[in-house]
C-alpha cells in the first residue's frame, strides 16, 4: 500500500471565536489504511463526530490537512467533495435516514441516480445490494413497513451499492436492541473481512467497538488512545 486511505495531518476544527471559541479537534494526527475496521470512541463533545464528518468529506478542517486517497480533500470545494462522497464513500447513520414513503429498493438506488447509472442497471445493482444485507423479498417495502434492524440493513445496502472504498458509520446500532445490534455488527464485520471494505465507525458502546480491529478514543479533541486488537490482525 503506497499511501493510507485516510490521513489527518495536524487537523484543527474550531467553532466560534473569542470567549466562545471551542476547539472540537485540537491538532489530530490519524491514519487509516485500506481494509481496516476502525471504531472511534469517546464521550460526547470529544470531537469524534467532527472527526467523522471530516473523514466522510462532509466537513473540512479549520487548520491542518486532511488527505483522502492521497487527495487534499480538506481543500476541496463543496461540489468536489460531493463527488468524492458519491464515488468512494458510503454512509450509515444512527437514525437510518431513509427517505420516507420511498421503497427499500428506491432508497438503495438513490446514490446511483446521482451517478447517472441507467435505470435497469440501477435496479439490478440495488437488488444485489439488498441481497447482500439479507433483505431479498422486502424490496417493495417502505421504511414504515420495516423494523429498525431492517431499516438499518437498507441503509447499509444504500451505502455499499456504489461499491465504495470507505464506509462511514455514525452510531449504526444506536437505535437498536442488543440482538439487532449484534446482527448489524456481524453484517459490517462480514463486509470488512470478505469484501475488504474499509470501515470507520463512531460508537460510544464498548461491546460494539469490540467488533472493530482497532479502537481510537477521542478526549477533548485529541486522540487519547489508539489500540489495535491482537486477534484481528
Amino acid at each position, binding site marked *: 500500500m503506497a499511501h493510507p486511505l485516510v490521513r489527518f495531518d495536524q487537523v484543527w476544527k474550531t467553532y466560534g471565536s473569542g470567549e466562545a471559541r471551542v476547539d472540537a479537534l485540537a491538532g489530530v494526527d490519524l491514519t487509516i489504511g485500506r481494509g481496516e475496521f476502525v471504531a472511534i470512541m469517546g464521550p460526547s463533545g470529544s470531537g469524534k463526530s467532527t472527526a467523522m*464528518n471530516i473523514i*466522510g468529506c*462532509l*466537513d473540512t478542517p479549520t487548520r491542518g490537512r486532511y488527505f483522502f486517497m492521497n487527495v487534499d480533500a480538506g481543500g476541496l470545494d*463543496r*461540489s468536489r467533495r*460531493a*463527488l468524492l*462522497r*458519491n*464515488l468512494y464513500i*458510503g*454512509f450509515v*447513520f444512527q437514525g437510518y*435516514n*431513509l*427517505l420516507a*414513503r420511498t421503497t427499500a429498493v428506491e432508497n438503495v438506488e*438513490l*446514490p446511483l*441516480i*446521482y*451517478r*447517472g447509472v441507467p*435505470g435497469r442497471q440501477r435496479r439490478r445493482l440495488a437488488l444485489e445490494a439488498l441481497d447482500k444485507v439479507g433483505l431479498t423479498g422486502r424490496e417493495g417495502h417502505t421504511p414504515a413497513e420495516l423494523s429498525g434492524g431492517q431499516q438499518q440493513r437498507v441503509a447499509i445496502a*444504500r*451505502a455499499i451499492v*456504489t461499491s465504495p472504498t470507505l464506509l462511514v458509520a455514525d452510531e449504526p446500532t444506536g437505535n437498536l436492541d442488543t440482538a439487532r445490534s449484534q446482527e448489524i455488527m456481524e453484517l459490517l464485520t462480514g463486509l470488512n473481512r470478505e469484501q475488504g471494505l474499509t470501515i470507520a465507525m463512531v460508537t460510544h458502546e464498548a461491546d460494539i467497538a469490540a467488533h472493530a480491529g482497532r479502537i481510537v478514543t477521542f478526549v477533548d479533541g485529541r486522540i487519547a488512545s489508539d489500540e489495535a486488537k491482537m486477534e484481528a490482525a
Partner: protein
Amino acid sequence: MIWETVRLALLSIRRNALRSVLTLLGIVIGVAAVIAMITIGSGTTEKVKADISKLGSNLLVVRAGGAPQPGGPRIQAKELRAREVQALVDGIPEARAIAAASQKQVRIVSGTDSLSVLVTGSDPGYFIARDWGVALGREFTDQEVRGNANVCLVGETVRSQFFGAGDPLGLAVRVGRMSCTIIGILESKGFSGFGQDQDATVLMPLTTFQRRIAGNRDVDTIYISGTDGTPMAEMQEKVEDILRETRRITADKDDDFSVRDMTQIAETMASATTVMTGMLGALAGVSLLVGGIGIMNIMLVSVTERTREIGIRLAIGAQERDILVQFMVEATVLSLIGGLIGIALGMSLAGLASATMSIPFAPSLPVIALAVGFSGAIGMVFGFFPALRAARLDPIDALRHE
C-alpha cells in the same frame, strides 16, 4: 435523469395533495383569468367588427350637428331635411344607394302584447345601404314611400314575441298611435356588440314615420353607400362640399353636420376593444404573479420540511446542482399543472360567455402557448430562490435537522 426528476416531483406533489391543490389554485385562477379575458375580449373585438360591417361596408353616415370640438360645446345645428337628401342624390350619381332615415323608440302593440322597439323610417335605399335583407315578404316600394303607406317590416324579435310560429304577413300592428300592415320580416341581425337587440325593430317608409310617428319632417341620418372600390375619402369630401353648399355655410364657419366613414369607425372600435382586452389580460396577469408568490411560499415550506431529506441526498453524493434542479422542477411541474388546469377552466369560461353573450368563441393558440410558457416560467422564477436555499444547505446541519 430529467425524467427521474419529473417523476420524483410528481411523487412529492402527490404526497402533499391538499397543499399542492391549494397552491395550484393561485396559478389556476391566474391562468384561467388571463385566458378567459383574452378569449372573450378577442371574441368581442370580432363581434364589434362584424357588427359595424353589418351596418354596411363602404358606408358614409351623415348626421346634423358638427363633430364636437375637444372641450367645446356641441355645435347647435338645424336638422337635415329632404332638400339635403335630394342634393346628395343629384350630386353623387356614383353612389350605390342613398337613404334618409329617422328613428324613435316606440311602444308597439299587437293584441294584448306590447314591446318597446326602435322604429325606423326610411326609403328602399336603406336595405342596400344598411346591407339588410328581407327574410320573408317584401321591401316597401318608392311608390309606398311617396304615398305615406301604412306598411311596415318587423324584426325577428317582434315576429317571435307577437306571432310565435304563425305567419304575420298581412296582419296589422299598432305602432304608437298608428296601425300598419306587416309586409315583410327583416333578416335577423342578433345582438350588437353593445348588447342591443337589433331585431327588436320596425321599419316603415320615411314619410309615414315623419307624419305619423315623429310629427316633423326631420331626417336623423343619411346613409350613403359606395360600391366596392369607391374611394371613400374622396366621396366624403364631395358629400361635405354638397352639404356646405346646400346649408349655406360660409368658408369661415365650421361644418354643422358630421360625415363618418363606418369602416374607419369599425377600425377605431376594434382597436379600442383590443386595448381593453390587453388591459384586462394584464390585470389578470397580476393574479398570476400572486399565484407565483404562493408557489414560492409553499416551496420554502417544503424545503424546510424536507431539510433532512436534502441532507441525506447531499451526504450520499448529490451535487448542489442536483438539488437545485430537483426543487426547481418540482415548482415548475406544480405551476405547469396549474397552468393546464387554468387553460381548461379559462376556455370553458370563455366558451360559456360566448354562448350566453352570443359573441364568437375565439380561442387563440399563441395566448394558450404563452399561458403555458408563462406558468412554467413562474414556477422556475419563484422556485429558484427556495431551490437555491435547499441546494446551499450544509449537509451536516441538514442531517441533524429534526
